[in-house]
């Protein structure tokens, strides 16, 4: 099982999409300690988790993994939801594009299920307004 390839299959397109925005929005993935606590700068946090690996398949030449992709968008609090939702649109578009991508002979075939959310939250202390979407995924590593 190539977990890194699965992770890359969803992380790279998200990074590209947010980097292409003007201004570019930083994206932080698991175990990356780039965001200083309580920064007011807007940013995106992507968490890719793994649930079940190697479900029974019809052929032994593929590896399957299931898990969740959780994307949180942190934008400045007190300025309404518009900016947050614009960034969430970018994330949703990436996930939908992944689902539209044709299956290839090799590499990782990545599909997300229903995209849940967005849900929003904020607290008095936090400088951010947080928007969150999540989706389950099935990734097939093709040999």
């Amino acid at each position, binding site marked *: 099982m190539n977990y890194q390839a699965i992770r890359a299959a969803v992380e790279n397109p998200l990074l590209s999409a947010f980097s292409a925005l003007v201004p570019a929005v930083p994206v932080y993935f698991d175990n990356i300690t780039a965001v200083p606590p309580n920064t007011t700068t807007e940013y995106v946090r992507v968490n890719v988790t793994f*649930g*079940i690996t190697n479900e029974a398949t019809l052929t032994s030449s593929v590896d399957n993994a*299931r898990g*969740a992709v959780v994307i*949180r968008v942190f934008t400045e609090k007190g300025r309404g939801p518009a900016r947050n939702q614009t960034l969430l649109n970018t994330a949703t578009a990436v996930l939908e594009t992944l689902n539209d991508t044709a299956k290839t002979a090799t590499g990782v075939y990545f599909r997300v299920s229903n995209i849940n959310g967005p*849900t929003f939250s904020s607290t008095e202390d*936090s400088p951010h307004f*947080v928007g*969150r979407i999540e989706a*389950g995924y099935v990734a097939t590593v093709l040999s």
Partner: protein
Amino acid sequence: MARSRGFLNELDRLVENIDRIAVAAFSRGPARAAEEIVVDLQEAGPVWSGRFSNSWQIETSDGRRTAGNGASGFPQRISAPLLSGRGFAFDEIKYTISNFSTYADQARDLAEGYYTDPGTTPLKEYDRGTRVSGIRGDLIGNDEGPNRSTAPLDWYATYLRGGAIDRRIKIQLDAELGRIRL
């Protein structure tokens, strides 16, 4: 004539039995699955005082409900209510699992919250780190950090979307259907 009426009565009884056994299996399977899912959630989720873990509840589509006691302490199992015969319909077998803790959304990493370290030792092993945002499990991993977390970030989304819940339901339904003897 009398013989064929007797045969028809036997046939009626057999059909009733099949109905009764199938209904029981289809009701018990989801009930057992719901109980096991709560156990999974208790194991996967955060356990500090135990109040969140003891605040799961199971409700059926016909309004029956069982719930944890919401008290601190090690997580306790709860028994799922069975659907009543009247409430049973094959297209409406519904068990709802939810958590009635006031900070359930924060514990499941669904919303930001406030966190104060009570200074006590949690009932479950924990990781240390520095919390980056208002999300409970959003810790930068360094062992010296001031914050503690007893479940990884997005443990709930992982359980819900990562296939574990589907597998739990399948195992329990298969087990109940496997017990059917006609």
